[in-house]
């Protein structure tokens, strides 16, 4: 339906210039491929814009929480600040240190950004609004988010700088530790949903009681663990030991500059938005309205999805403004001695609960 409308619009647009026939003879045979590419662009561009404006919102929120106004010079209310930052990074020299492994040094940021974007392929934004409706959606997400650690560890190794190296091993140990807690939390969601398809997981949360049917009610501890593990996975404050500026300068990206640094930055924020999207899909009912009655279920699902994502992203910023940085031993203790036992127990609790008639979800 949507496809036909887009085709019609393209035909109308290019006919204004009289190009349509020659264009279609070129594009026509490969139309399914072009259509998929257009859909990918329709995901990547909003994600990139989201990343740009998340940095702006972050600085504004942190500013107001610290009784300042944040960026307000470039454009009205500072709204062009992310554009100015982007242009500045773009015009900066890309430095490749002499001691580094040049190939790995350049490959690392690409290995960071590619999985951070590719994971979006299976995220449903509204009912049926998903690029690839695959059965193993959650497995694919887990695979892609796990690949992100390669970018970091390769960056730290290839830089041949002590700060980068220390940042990379710290970060790798932290990410793999919290990935375990995250994995166990996902197992609980799978138990409740009985499917790995993200769309089916959201549909499993649809019921007569609105938000009481969402999985954050029976899996509340898992929701909290998933969110905190997400903060740790993306190296965000208060778990940002990988780029602990007062101890190891900038961590794994100490030696990066210009666009090669910008890619790490983009990857971190794209991952934050991804965690927000996944928290909404897995625990907060995705595109479903909080109460299934007249004014609320008239609003398009995309609106609810974006609203829930914004809420989670605000929590990310709020945490950063509130908490001091963890010490490394506290970080590892929280991951291994609190989260892993807690999530293991909750897997057993949910599985046992499902054997009784009292499982209502």
């Amino acid at each position, binding site marked *: 339906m949507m496809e036909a409308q887009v085709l019609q619009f393209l035909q109308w647009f290019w006919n204004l210039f009289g190009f349509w026939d020659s264009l279609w003879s070129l594009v026509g045979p490969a139309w399914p491929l072009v259509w*998929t590419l257009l859909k*990918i*662009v329709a*995901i*990547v561009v909003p994600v*990139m814009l989201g990343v740009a404006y998340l940095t702006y919102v972050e600085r504004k929120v942190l500013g107001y929480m610290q009784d300042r106004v944040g960026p307000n010079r470039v454009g009205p209310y500072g709204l062009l600040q992310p554009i100015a930052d982007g242009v500045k990074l773009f*015009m900066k*020299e*890309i*430095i*490749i*240190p002499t*001691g580094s492994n040049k190939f790995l040094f350049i490959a690392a*940021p*690409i290995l*960071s*950004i*590619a*999985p951070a974007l*590719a994971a979006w*392929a*299976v995220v449903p934004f509204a009912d049926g609004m998903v*690029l*690839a409706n*695959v*059965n193993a959606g959650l497995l*694919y997400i887990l695979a892609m988010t796990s690949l992100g650690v390669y970018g970091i560890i390769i960056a730290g190794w290839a830089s*041949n*700088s*002590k700060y980068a*190296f*220390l940042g990379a*091993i710290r970060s*790798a*140990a932290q990410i*793999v*530790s919290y*990935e375990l807690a995250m*994995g*166990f939390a*996902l*197992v609980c969601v799978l*138990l409740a949903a*009985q499917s790995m398809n993200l769309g089916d997981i959201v549909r499993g949360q649809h019921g007569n009681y609105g938000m009481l049917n969402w999985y954050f009610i029976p899996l509340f501890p898992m929701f909290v663990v998933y969110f905190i593990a997400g903060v740790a996975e993306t190296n965000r404050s208060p778990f940002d030991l990988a780029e602990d500026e007062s101890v190891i*300068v900038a961590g794994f990206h100490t*030696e990066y500059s210009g*666009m*090669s640094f*910008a*890619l790490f930055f983009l990857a971190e924020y794209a991952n934050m938005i991804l965690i927000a999207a996944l928290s909404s899909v897995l625990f907060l009912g995705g595109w479903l309205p909080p109460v299934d009655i007249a004014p609320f279920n008239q609003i398009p699902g995309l609106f609810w999805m974006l609203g829930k994502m914004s809420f989670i992203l605000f929590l990310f910023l709020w945490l950063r403004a509130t908490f001091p940085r963890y010490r*490394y*031993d506290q970080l*590892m*203790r929280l991951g291994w001695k609190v989260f*892993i036992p807690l999530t293991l127990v909750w*897997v*057993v609790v949910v*599985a046992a609960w*499902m*054997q009784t008639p009292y499982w209502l979800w």
Partner: protein
Amino acid sequence: MLENYFPVLLFICVGLAVGVVPLVLGRLAAPHRPDSAKLSPYECGFEAFEDARMKFDVRYYLVAILFILFDLEIAFLFPWAIVLKEIGLFGFLSMMVFLGILVVGFIYEWMKGALEWE
């Protein structure tokens, strides 16, 4: 079935392109004036004494090994979790035996101090 994954493959290629293109453009648009001080590793103002790939704490290896164990366990839990309603009580009890053995291992490593960072 498999053609569902074609957009995923295409998306990975687009992701790689989003990584490569800014680097190439940045290299073309930005200045490129290397000198030996600029290209030396960051080391608070002095020359680096030795190679940066130094010895590091063995506990990082331990974390990596434990991670592989537990991640495999999660990989086993995934297929079990999505069919638990069909396999019922028998499936539940079998997995509890498996988890029980792993928990014994977890308690052992905890008592051995493998999780201590001080």
